[in-house]
């Protein structure tokens, strides 16, 4: 941190430029690697590789970017709101709730779209929102949120949701069961841009809305009472973060399944690089989250000589140890 400029404005500019470059680099890598190595020059000559590129590779990288950015920025926002460095959509059960909501929607055969928005998204959003409200209510004691209880109820909600998803998977028809399996593994497989557009229409406004709350979340991360006396409407901010988080997690989970720990690793990496200020951590998490999942997915596609790993396995293998490392570092954090 000592080599960074002192003013927040300059620090934000440095972080934005560096992380945008990193994102651009990882997108290029993500577009190139995979079971078929893409040479950009070939795209002009060969229609088969052009088809592969535009129908499979580009949508998949876009999907990874949207999902990673959303999960990371939600993680950063939840950590600030709950003042808990170990909070993330996965540890708080929000992803689990979203997966359950989506599974129920599939089991009920909700394949329709309302106003272009798939009902699947609605089911996933509702599940995510219910989870975050439930976990929050469980951890609340009067005016305070008990940090231990917060994480414990998050874990329990996640376990119950996974069990429920498994149960549904066993009772529904094999076709739906296969679809539900996605939420257990987490996958970014997507063909064409139809789904991507439908995600982007919901995610991009949510990104703008959560970034617009950067200052409020910065004040809330420092202290709730002082934030309130500095002009933050705490209850309104809480409601907004709950809704926006559930929307982003719901939409990404509905398509890609519960991909764990992105919201935990990425915000902390941004903190290590650029400090604690949420006005940097939030946009930084958005950019680095996109880059991280694009790279993790590129790894998932290439690490095995034949076939591919689910990207959730990669983030889980990286995220678990990161969680434990953060837990060990808790002396630096006053509350857990």
């Amino acid at each position, binding site marked *: 941190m000592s080599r960074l400029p*002192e*003013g*927040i*404005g300059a620090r*934000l500019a440095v972080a934005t430029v560096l992380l945008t470059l990193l994102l651009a680099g990882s997108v290029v890598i993500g577009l190139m690697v995979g079971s078929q190595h893409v040479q950009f020059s070939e795209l002009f000559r060969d229609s088969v590789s052009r088809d592969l590129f535009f129908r499979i590779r580009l949508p998949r990288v876009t999907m990874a970017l949207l999902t990673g950015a959303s999960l990371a920025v939600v993680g950063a926002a939840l*950590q600030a709101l709950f*003042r*808990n*460095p170990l909070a993330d959509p996965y540890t708080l059960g929000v992803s689990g709730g979203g997966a359950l909501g989506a599974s129920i929607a599939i089991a009920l055969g909700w394949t329709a779209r309302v106003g272009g928005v798939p009902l699947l998204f609605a089911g996933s959003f509702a599940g995510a929102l219910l989870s975050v409200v439930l976990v929050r209510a469980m951890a609340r004691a009067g005016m305070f949120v008990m*940090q231990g209880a917060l994480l414990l109820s998050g874990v329990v909600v996640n376990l119950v949701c996974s069990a429920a998803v498994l149960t549904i998977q066993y009772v529904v028809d094999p076709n739906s069961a296969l679809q539900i399996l996605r939420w257990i593994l987490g996958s970014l497989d997507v063909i064409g841009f139809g789904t991507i557009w439908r995600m982007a229409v919901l995610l991009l406004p949510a990104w703008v809305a959560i970034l*617009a709350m950067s*200052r409020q979340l*910065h*004040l809330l*991360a*420092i*202290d709730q*009472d*002082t934030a*309130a*006396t*500095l*002009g*933050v*409407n705490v209850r309104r901010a809480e409601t907004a973060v709950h809704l926006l988080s559930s929307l982003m997690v719901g939409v990404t989970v509905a398509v890609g399944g519960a991909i764990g720990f992105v919201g935990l690793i990425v915000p902390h990496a941004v*903190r290590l690089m650029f*400090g*604690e*200020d949420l*006005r940097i951590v939030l946009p930084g998490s958005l950019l680095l989250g996109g880059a991280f999942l694009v790279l993790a997915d590129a790894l998932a596609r290439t690490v095995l000589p034949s076939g591919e790993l689910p990207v959730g396995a990669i983030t889980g293998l990286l995220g678990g140890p990161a969680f434990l490392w953060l837990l060990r570092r808790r002396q*630096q*954090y*006053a*509350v857990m």
Partner: protein
Amino acid sequence: MPLMTVRDLRFTYRGGSAPAVRGIVLEVVERSMTALIGANGSGKSTLIRLLAGLLTPESGTIELEAKPLHHWDPRARARRIAYVPQNMAVAFPFPAIDVVLSGRTPHLNAFRLEGAGDRAKAMEALETVGAAHLATRYVTALSGGERQMVMLARALAQEPSLLLLDEPSAALDLKHRAALIRTLVRLRAERSVSVVMVTHDLQLTSAAFDRIVALRCGEISAEGSPDEVLQRQKLAEIYSDPGVQALRVGSQTVIWTEL
């Protein structure tokens, strides 16, 4: 004109059987220093949180500059009132200067970031409380007393006309408690800041504050100048302890109780 006027204030916590405060009538005039005293659970912290706008009264009114507190735009209000909580459990290792800088928020437009002028004001606030050396330290690594100085500096960075403090001296040693009171006296003299402070520090308060308000079971049981309130009889009543003794020594009143 009084800075703040409180009339017939009453507040009950959700699920609470009795009101935490009731029938509170209070006037805070400009450039005044008021101490709120009383036994544990007497309603001091509730009252100061009501004055800070953190709790909404059940009935009664709080007016700031003759306008109801809840009618104020939150940012405009934050430029007038600053609140220092009893303690602040910071979960993330923010550098102290960042915490102090957050006090500049009410002076910034919605999407503006703090500039060099704000940093200068934040440093000045840290210097005022004698904590400039803590600027780059992580708040999570500070002692309770050091953190309290940082929180006070954060409140000063707001440049308020009314400073509300909830037991700011609880974690401070004698030297820093005295320094805190001297700082408050100086702020009143130099910047016309009024102070309302919840405290158990009767002795230092007696020399510096012009008014003491004593709470007992949520009601004001005594008020007046330190000399009027810090008397054996009244203190025995405030603290429900017949053994309390008070003795004037120089400019301060020493208070103790028989064991």
